Each structure stands twice: as structure tokens, then as C-alpha cells.
């Protein structure tokens, strides 16, 4: 088709290239992490990752050819879809390790909260675009926030605080870039933060009840502040991850030769702590490469954002950039011991199909906006 070629000419090739690099690094890291301890080896992990990336790339291509502006018209359905999916999950979902995060349809299980992030970006972009003249005051913030809180709490109820926080960060970033005032954001979120700080302090000092936070989440916070308080218990993950990272030194211990990863001292090594495997086996050089790739990718997003044809496109890319940024900050940050532990994946690299597919779909949205940055001549 003639118009497709025109569109492809506009395509930013740097984004797919960076994405491909990260996915390949992900294959390497998951293979190494997956070979540790478990007999049968890494092939089953790698197979899942390859299958998910094929599916993700197919969805990505599909999305590219669908003009993003169409989502603007269906924003209410998108929002209803989020609420339905998350509620349905709470009723029907599969519980794994204390969290109800998986929905099984036929042979496929996936995490609705991952889908919810993408849908929420689209909905918020549409909502903030429509109400762009009402955002520069605190009422505007609270009104917008009212749309975020239902999915936020539905995800918290799944015991997935990490993803819920991602959602909140996406909202804050999009709201700010859409024209919200930093002062309003600081007042509202600073206030909530202060209340939580006081609640936790009183809870620890006086034993007053602590709403919203579960005991394991509180323990993670305590361990973050002082991992040495219980090195074989709540501080174990933090300490072992830090040892894995540090012992990689400049050049790393080599592929599949990291003792912390291969001998099982590092927990959750193929998912949440995959960055520790990279750090241990490839050293600071590996860390610098991976962080560099993420930085360049997000930098490209910002470029695409500023070239977008309309505000709706601008906000979609802003949401995607915020999502990746927060994932990297939180996941790498917790591995390096400067963020408390929450179980969110490192995009493209952590083992897990839902995350990989979602990340590729998000890239698709960015490319979609990118291709349509100029007026198209029919």
C-alpha cells in the first residue's frame, strides 16, 4: 500500500534498535539466571521469552498501522475495560505467591495489571487532552486523580503495590506534562506521603494500627532502611543482591559464572533481580551498557514526544516514557539498594511474557505517534 511506505519513511529506527538490544540482553540474562539450580536448564525460560517477543512484535506492527487518534474516541470504553478486567481478576484470578495477578484464558495466562498500564496511558492522554483547560489548579488534579484511584486500589488489592505505584507515577508525570502545576502535585502527594510516614512511625513506636500496608511491605521498608537488622530474614534479598552487584566489580565474573546467581544465593534472579545477575556476571561495564541503552531509549521518547503532531500523541508518549522510566528507576534502584523492594520487572529483560508483550505494545504506541508526526499527504 502506498501510504504505508510514506509512514515508514518517518519511522525513528533508533527506538526499534535500542529495543532489540535490550531484548537480546534479556535473553542472555534470563538464560544465565534460568540455568542456576533448576535441572532442565534455561531453555524453557528462553523459549517463553522468545515466544513473548514474537507475539509482542506482531502486536507492535499491528498497532503501528492503526492511527492512534482512534483511541481518543473510545476513551470511556478503555476505562470501562480497565475496571472490568481488574475486577474480574479479583474474582476469577489465579493466586501465586500471595498475589492474585494472573488471569487464565484458555492456554494463556497473563497479568491484567500490565494491560491496565497501557490502557490507563491511553485513557489519561484522552482525558487530559479533553480537560486541558482545567488542569492548572488543585481541583483539576483531584478530579483527574479520581479516575486513577479505582484502578490503583484494584491493583493494590491484588497485592501488587509495585504496579499500582507505576500507575500513580504515570499519572503524575502525564498530569504535569499536560499542564498541571508542580505545586498542586507536591501538596497532594507530599501530604499523603507525610501521613504514611507518621502512620508508620507511630506504628513502629507505639503499635498503633497501620492501614493499607501489609506486614511484609512494612518489613521491606524496615529492611530497606537497615538490611542488617535481620540478614537471614527480611534483609536477606537486599544483602544478597548487593553482594551480587558489588562482587561483579569492573568486568564481572563471566556469563553463567556468577556465584551469587548460579549457586542460588540471589533470590528471584530471573525476574525482579535480573539486573543483579547482569551486574554480577558482566560487571560495571555491563551495568553501564544496560543503563546507557535505557537512557538513550527514554531520551528518544522525549524527542518523539516533543515532535508529536498533537497533544494526545504527546501525552501517550509521555505516559510510555514515564512507565519505562519508573520501572528502570525502581527495579535498578532496589537492586542497588537505593529504593525499597517492590516486585516490578525490568522492561524487556526480566523473565515474564506479560511484561515483555506490554513493553513492546508500548513501543508500538510510541512508534505510531512518531510516524504520524507530520501531516500526511494522501
Amino acid at each position, binding site marked *: 500500500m502506498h501510504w504505508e511506505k510514506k509512514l515508514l519513511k518517518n519511522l525513528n529506527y533508533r527506538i526499534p534498535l535500542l529495543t532489540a538490544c535490550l531484548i537480546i540482553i534479556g535473553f542472555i540474562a534470563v538464560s544465565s539466571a534460568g540455568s542456576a*539450580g533448576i535441572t532442565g536448564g534455561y531453555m524453557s525460560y528462553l523459549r517463553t521469552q522468545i515466544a513473548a517477543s514474537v507475539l509482542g512484535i506482531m502486536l507492535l506492527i499491528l498497532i503501528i498501522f492503526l492511527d492512534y487518534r482512534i483511541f481518543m474516541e473510545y476513551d470511556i470504553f478503555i476505562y470501562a475495560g480497565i475496571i472490568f478486567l481488574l475486577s474480574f481478576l479479583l474474582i476469577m484470578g489465579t493466586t501465586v505467591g500471595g498475589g492474585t495477578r494472573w488471569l487464565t484464558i484458555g492456554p494463556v495466562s497473563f497479568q491484567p495489571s500490565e494491560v491496565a498500564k497501557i490502557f490507563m496511558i491511553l485513557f489519561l492522554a484522552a482525558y487530559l487532552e479533553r480537560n486541558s483547560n482545567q488542569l492548572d489548579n488543585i481541583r483539576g488534579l483531584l478530579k483527574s486523580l479520581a479516575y486513577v484511584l479505582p484502578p490503583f486500589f484494584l491493583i493494590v488489592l491484588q497485592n501488587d503495590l509495585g504496579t499500582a505505584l507505576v500507575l500513580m507515577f504515570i499519572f503524575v*508525570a502525564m498530569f*504535569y*506534562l499536560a*499542564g498541571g502545576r508542580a505545586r498542586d502535585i507536591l501538596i497532594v502527594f507530599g501530604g499523603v506521603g507525610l501521613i504514611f510516614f507518621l502512620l508508620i512511625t507511630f506504628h513502629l513506636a507505639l503499635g498503633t494500627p497501620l492501614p493499607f500496608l501489609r506486614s511484609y511491605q512494612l518489613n521491606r521498608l524496615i529492611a530497606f532502611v537497615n538490611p542488617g537488622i535481620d540478614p*537471614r530474614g527480611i534483609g536477606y534479598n537486599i544483602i*544478597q543482591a*548487593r*553482594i*551480587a*552487584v*558489588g*562482587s*561483579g*566489580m*569492573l568486568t564481572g565474573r563471566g556469563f553463567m559464572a556468577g*556465584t*551469587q546467581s548460579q*549457586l*542460588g*544465593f540471589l533470590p528471584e534472579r530471573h525476574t525482579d533481580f535480573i539486573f543483579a545477575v547482569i*551486574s*554480577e556476571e558482566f*560487571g*560495571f561495564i555491563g*551495568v*553501564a551498557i544496560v*543503563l546507557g541503552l*535505557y*537512557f538513550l531509549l*527514554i*531520551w528518544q521518547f*522525549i524527542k518523539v*514526544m*516533543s515532535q508529536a503532531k498533537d497533544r494526545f500523541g504527546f501525552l501517550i508518549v*509521555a505516559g510510555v*516514557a514515564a512507565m519505562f*522510566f519508573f520501572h*528502570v*528507576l525502581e527495579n*535498578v*534502584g532496589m537492586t*542497588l*539498594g*537505593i529504593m525499597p523492594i517492590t516486585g516490578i520487572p525490568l522492561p524487556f529483560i526480566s523473565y515474564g511474557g506479560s511484561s515483555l508483550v506490554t513493553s513492546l505494545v508500548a513501543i508500538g504506541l510510541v512508534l505510531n505517534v512518531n510516524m504520524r508526526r507530520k501531516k500526511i499527504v494522501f
Partner: protein
Amino acid sequence: MENRIKIAKIVVVAVFLLLFVRAAQLQIIQGEEYFRMAENNRISIRPVNAPRGRIYSADGDILVSNKLTYNLYYQPNELSPEMTRSGLFDFLAEIIETDRETLESNYFRNQELSGPGDGVLLRRNISVEDMIRVAERNNQLQGIDIREAPLRDYIYDDIGSHIIGHIGEISKQELRDFVQQGRDYTGGDIIGIAGLERQYEDYLMGRRGFEEVEVNNLGHKENLLRSQDPVPGYDLHLTVDWELQQRTETRLEEKHYYLKELAEEDDEIPEPGGVAAVMMDINSGEILAMGNYPRFDPNKFATGFSNAEYDEIRNDPLQPMLNRNTMFAVSPGSIFKIVTGIAAIENLEVDENTTFYDATGEFRIPGWERPFRNWLNYGEGELDFTRAIGRSNNIVFYELSYELYEEFRGTRLVETAREFGLGEVSGIDLPGERAGLVPDGSWKRQNLNEGWYPGDSINMGIGQGYLSTTPLQLLQITAAVANRGKIYQPTLVRKIVDNRGEIIKENNPEADKELSFARESYEIIEQGLLEVTMTDYGTASSVFRDFPLDIAGKTGTAQLGYGGLSHAWFTAYGPVPDPEVAVVVFIERGDTSQHAAPVAADMLAGYFDLEDEVGETEGMGDPAGP
């Protein structure tokens, strides 16, 4: 909007910069430190226990060896997620011979002694049947490990138990002390507790080896990196003739039950206590036999007691753990007349022809009312010095003691006793030896706040009063007479040999001390001791009259206060004129020396291989004798 994008860019750059810097801090600045921590995580140094040295008799019979057993360990981090610890213990208690309380108490006791990943010792020495039952169910028993371990094997059970001693788990206090001394012990180690096992712990224990292994997070071994074999403990070769030892132990046991029977038939005769006997080579100090009754089975200590079994032994009034030969000091009774006799010969110009007169069987200190009595209630008339020994006549020895007291102000007899080694340990290679007591004026003032009276010297002269000695000390005195004044440090171990057969240490049979007495003094005493056994009036003649060899001996019946209870003593050596061995027999509350002498005769018959020539000697002798 441009402004907001700029701020977003600043935030992104700042955050990535922060992550870079933090990674550099961990990996480059602190990298080596974390590398060491990673190495500590993965490398575990596991001790490999050395097999404990074996113990052989003088003829090369193996007495103590090691066999294989199985211990159960609990690995907390291998517990399956669906199982709790108490659930696991409940299940285990159903399978093997134990209960949950025992498992739990062992767990809590051993928990602090074991390092991370080592596992906690739950149960030692499970039977092969139990081991198989546990191994068959290892799927349901995740977290329970079976490990091979050496078990001390005492081939002859309770025979020689007081010589060999026993082993046990190191106590917390001892562990702390040993570690402070820089010795290589860890919690749960098996260590010698009593007897030779204790005395020669440093030789028997060997040197621990180690395995440096790579472990995973569960502490499972993945690779062997480096190892050093343990050095087995050294073997002990004893001086003890095991045939004689068995014979002695059997005789002592028979004697105990024979006296018990007598006591049940006759109210006058007291219930006997423990019995003990030692035979020693007089020219080297080597112990040929050292027996006791009651005894204990050291295998019980190796396999582990139940609390009830342990209480039973500990609360037994006969104290089966006590080696009465070295750990029990009481009045020597008339055996001490050897010492008094030597003092008299050396200091009072007494010789074999000196005559005494016992008119009434009573002796009075001039100016004192209370008489000192002989064991007969009539006078024996005229006796020469050697006959006084042969008859064990108290009146003669009262007189001699009184003269010694008068001439030397009560010091000379004490000095003579001390020269013979009384009041000091013999230095035998067994732990817990008692020194006994040779009382003197200053001892009496300090402990009883009383002066030294002539009566004290007179009592001491016949081996009564505050004087106390162990059987081994009396054996040394007897041996010194036999070898004419040499004191050897008694020993049970002839040599210590490593696993290549090389001698590490050998007993040196040189006299430790030469006594200052004249040769004639011993000869005069020997003449008296021969009269004890070989004349028709001697106090042990009924036992030794028909003995094929010339044996010198001395009876002793030591009174315990005024209750009519007495300990029975007998010492002897032979054959005169070229003696080889000396023997002592002690029977706690044995009533009269007449019960002790036959045991000595039987041991001598055993030593000299006189099986056919010596008949049954049991129960003979003058029941009223000293």
C-alpha cells in the same frame, strides 16, 4: 510546555546519573569487599573428624575400637514449604525409636553449636533399621539428613571400664576453655571424659582434616575445591594383661556377691561396698591388672543414655563410676604397720630379734586412762619383732609408735609415711587420683583446732585415725619393700603408636625415687611379711599356707569409727626371694582382711599360671582375724 519537557529531561539525567554513581560505588569502590563476601557465601570449610585412636592390651588384644554408626541432622533451610518443624519432628518420632520432646530438646541444645548450613544434630547412633526407615522416606522427610559417624566400640563392655574410662559430648564449659587455649574443638565433638580416654585425649583425638567445598544457598555441596585428610588418633598399647584383668574383675564381682550373701544371712556382717584390686610389676611400675566392682559399660556412654539410665548410675550408692584403686582414700589399717615398722627399725634400733611383751592385749599411755586394744582380747605374751608383724599385733606397734612420739615429738612417723609417697598422688596416668592424707600437728590445729596428742601418733601407728590412703598408694609401699626402696610412677600405657606403627611415646621404667632407708630394714620387714603368710600363726596363713610360691603379705582391717564396720585390706608381693609383682586388694566395708587375701592369692595364681596347684580359697581364714 517546553519548560516542562526541560524539567523532565533534567529529572531523567539526574536519576540515571544517580544509578551510575551508585553502581560504580558498589562495583568499583566497594567491589573487593563484596567479592570477599560472595566468596564467603559460596565456600564452606567442613571439618572431617579423625578416627579416634584404638586401645590395645599388653598382649595386643584390641580393647577399644571404632565402628560405623548413623547420626540424624536437621537442615532448617531444606524444610519443604508445606511442612513445619514440629510436624517434621512428629513424623520422624513415629518412624524411629524416639519421641518429639527428645528431638526438640536436642534441636534447641545443639542449634547454637552448629554453624549456618551445617545442620543441627538431632539424634546420635540410630540403629541400622531406623536409618533404613528414614532413608526410605526421605521424600516426606525433607530437611532430615543421615550422616555416617564413628562410634566408639568397647569390645569387653564393662571389663576394665575404670581403666579405659569413657567418652562423651564436650560440655559447653569445656569447649569454651579449650577454645580459649587454642585447641581444635567444636561443639558436639566427642571427647574423653574419664579414664585413659580422658588422660590421653590429646593423643587419641587425632587431627581433624577439612574439606573446602563450594556450596549453594541451601548449604548443599556442589564442588570439592580442596581437602586435607584427617590424621587418625594414636593407638595406646597398655601394660595390662587382659587375661589377668578379666580374671581379677570376675573374682571381684564374685567376692562382692559372696559378701552380700553373707550379709543377708548374718546380721552381724555388714553389707559390702565396692571392691578393688591392683597388681603391679615391682620393677617398672607397670600396672598388670586394675579391677573394680561395681563397674559400668562405657558403650552406654558412647551410644547415649536415656536420662533414667544416667540417673540410675549417678544415684547408685555403690558409685559404679568410682575407681576405688585411685579415687578413694580411707584408713589403711594394719597395712600401715609396714611404714611404722620401717620407722622403728631406722630410728629405734629395732631388729628382727628385738622382743616385746603383750601381757593383756591392752596398751596404756603413761598418765592416760583410756586403753588402746589389740584385736584379741587377751595378751599374746612374748613376741619378737617379725612375729609381731606376722600376728599383726597392735600392742607392739602402739609401743613403737609411742616411743617414736616420745623421741621425735610426733614427727618421725609422719616423715616416714610421706617419704613412702603417702599424702601425695602417685602420678598414675589416670585422671582424678586422690592424694589421701598424712595428718600432722599443724594439719590438726588448722582443721580441728586441736593439738597433736600422743594418742594420735599411736592410732596412726596402726593405720587408724585421720590417716587415709588409696589402694594404689599402699601397693607402692608394698612394691618398695619388695624392690628394696624404689618408687616407680605407676603406669597403664607402655607405648603410644601412630598409624604407621611409629612410636610416639614410650614408658620409661626407671625409678622416680630412691628411698633413703637401709636395705636391712626392708629385709627385716620382709621376714615379718613372710611370717604373715607362711607360718601357722600368720594372719593370712590359712590362705597362703599351701601356696606353691613364697609370698610376702600383710593383712589390714581398718575400723570405721566405732560402729563395728571395717574395710578389708590385703597387700602382697612375690615370689620371695626374687619378687616380680605386688598386689593390693581393698573391700569397702569388707569386715575382715580374711575376705581380701583370697582375691590376692587368686590374682597371684593367675599371674604365675598356677591354676592347678591352687584350690578354692574362698571363705577360709580366721573370721576374727585382723
